[in-house]
């Protein structure tokens, strides 16, 4: 009974917060709704007696991923964007039609066949040693590949985020191709005009004769 109440409450909160993610105009509220959503999912794990999964869910998503989301959103400032402002009407209409088609498809596809009896989970479900076991056996390769994935992402972030090294002049093949830089050309033109200013016409001090 208690479990049923908690389950219903967590599900309702999960759905409500998922809607909040999509419907919030302010991205900060969207991110906060997403956190609520993840926490309600963690509650469901708790209902399955999977303490470890619940804690991992909160630590990884709420503790690490979402905090970065909020961090970036807060940095970008308090801008509420209005996603529907610049979209032409026919695109909105097409989106509604396509979305409705997908919803109908999902309903038809899922309702066409009854779900079998749910699987029962064992007492060991989601406990640390079971999770560790699957990491080191069946999903060993995936686990290792994920660490490589994170390494590559970190290298990529450094490449994109770091300052460009100073231009090299010591290349053996020294034909640096001219690259289009319209702003700089404009600047050069302006500066050229200034240097071409008739300097000799300017009155000089010693010509005044006192």
């Amino acid at each position, binding site marked *: 009974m208690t479990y049923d109440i908690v389950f219903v409450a967590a599900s309702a909160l999960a759905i409500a917060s998922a809607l909040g993610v999509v419907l919030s105009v302010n991205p900060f509220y969207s991110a906060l709704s997403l956190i609520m959503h993840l926490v309600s999912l963690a509650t469901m794990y708790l209902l399955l007696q999977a303490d470890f999964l619940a804690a991992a869910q909160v630590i990884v998503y709420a503790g690490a991923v979402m905090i970065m989301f909020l961090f970036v959103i807060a940095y970008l400032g308090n801008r509420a964007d209005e996603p529907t402002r610049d979209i032409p009407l026919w695109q909105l209409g097409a989106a509604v039609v396509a979305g409705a088609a997908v919803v109908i498809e999902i309903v038809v596809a899922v309702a066409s066949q009854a779900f079998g009896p749910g699987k029962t989970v064992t007492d060991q479900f989601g406990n640390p040693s079971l999770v560790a076991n699957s990491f080191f*056996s069946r999903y060993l*390769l995936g686990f290792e590949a994920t660490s490589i994935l994170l390494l590559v992402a970190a*290298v990529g972030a450094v490449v994109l985020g770091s300052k460009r090294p100073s231009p090299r002049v010591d290349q053996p093949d020294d034909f640096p191709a001219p690259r289009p830089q319209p702003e700089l050309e404009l600047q050069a033109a302006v500066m050229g005009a200034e240097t071409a200013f008739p300097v000799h016409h300017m009155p000089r001090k010693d010509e005044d004769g006192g």
Partner: protein
Amino acid sequence: MITLTVTTVPVSWSAIAPEIVLLSCACVLLTCAIFLPARLAHPVGAAVAAGAFAAAMVAPIAQWHDAPRTAFDDTLRIDAFGNGARLLIFAAGLLAVVVAWGMPHLFDRAVEYHALLLAAAAGMSLLAVSNSLVIAFIALELFSIALYVLVAIDVDALPGLEGALKYLIVGSVGAAFLLYGSALVYGATGQFEFDLIAQSIRHGDAHGGVLLLGVAMIIVGLGFKANSAPFHMWTPDAYEGAPTPVTAFMSAATKTVALVLAFRVLVAAFGEDSAIWQDAVGALAVASFAVGNLAALRQANVKRMLAYSTIGHTGFLFTAVAVHTQAAARAMFYYLAIYSLMNIGAFALVAIRERELGRPVLIDDFRGYAYRRPLLALSMVVFMLSLAGLPPMGGFIAKITIWSSAVDGGQTYLAIVGVAATLVGLGYYLKIPFALVDRDVPIPESPYRPAFAVTSATVLATAVAVMVLGIIPGPLLDLAQTASASLIGR
């Protein structure tokens, strides 16, 4: 005191030897970059990357005739199909290293370029032999993230950043589709491994509706990666903005690996349910034919035109997937090999011209080029004729084998649409050969630059290969036969 018993799987080093070689070389390269003097960065990076690609080819070649086997608890399937895709990827990587030799704005990021190239190739290689939706997704993300960065590696160039951002956002949507699809398939069948999914479906354990949704989403996700219309939005911008060697690598290797994955997952996991996906893939093929070829007609920028043309080529490759017979697999393999060669060759030539001009290359920039660099111009003619599918080039045989497999496989309408698309394609591919021999345009007085020996040699070599493989297609078709026979036995 808790005693933990961990049952580890036997680690099959030979199964992931290419990935180990590539990734360890990438790590060594990144570590050494700290100590390398600036002027050595590019030579050392190129040498290490080229060596790594060459070394990575050893294992697939050595295992070429081995019987298919699974590794890592059924999550990998090492067969000639995957090994052939690996060889194509490594060849594309090798060519990308060579084409990048002499790219001035890659000098600053030479080490990172080569390390990320190696990482991307490693991800693709893992994807080519993956037999599990989990591994497939991780490998896909691995190479995608490396490619997102590679597109924007010239961080001062706005087109590159724009292309990378579009690629990132649209690519993430595609990856999300693939992930949702995988989750739904897992929910329906309780399995991640392709052969176990097929088994579960055969036994009638799967929930049909959920499975259908899952397959649909997987096809959409693959459509994004294979730049098929209507999921192609990122392609022109990413291809145009990326540094040209990256574009060459992306166009060849990403396409190869996306198609190989599509073929493998649809045939190995859902092969017996082909009725539910065959028409969807066929529709994607038709859409790609239409969008790619019609949009390419209006492009003035050569890279953009080639980008739309790759969308058109996805139509042919998806035709093979829709047919999914052994003959179709063989045709797809041959097509992928030829396509990779001619696309990399064409992009390498664009890279040369780009470097001569110092700006993005338009079709008009090739006017009269035949009188200045006749050999390169001749190569360009070869590439364009081959891309258009005219004899005696490799592209002609590739299209013929696809069409014949489509007709044999009962998908005649795809062959007909393909012929129509080829006719439209002539309209833009032939613009460049005509421009090359245009006598009316005065040759612009530009400062003489030395020939780009390495890149030019690459261009010539790929051109010769495209022509030779078109005239003598037998050996390559035999290899493609071995590859396709290792996946399906029909």
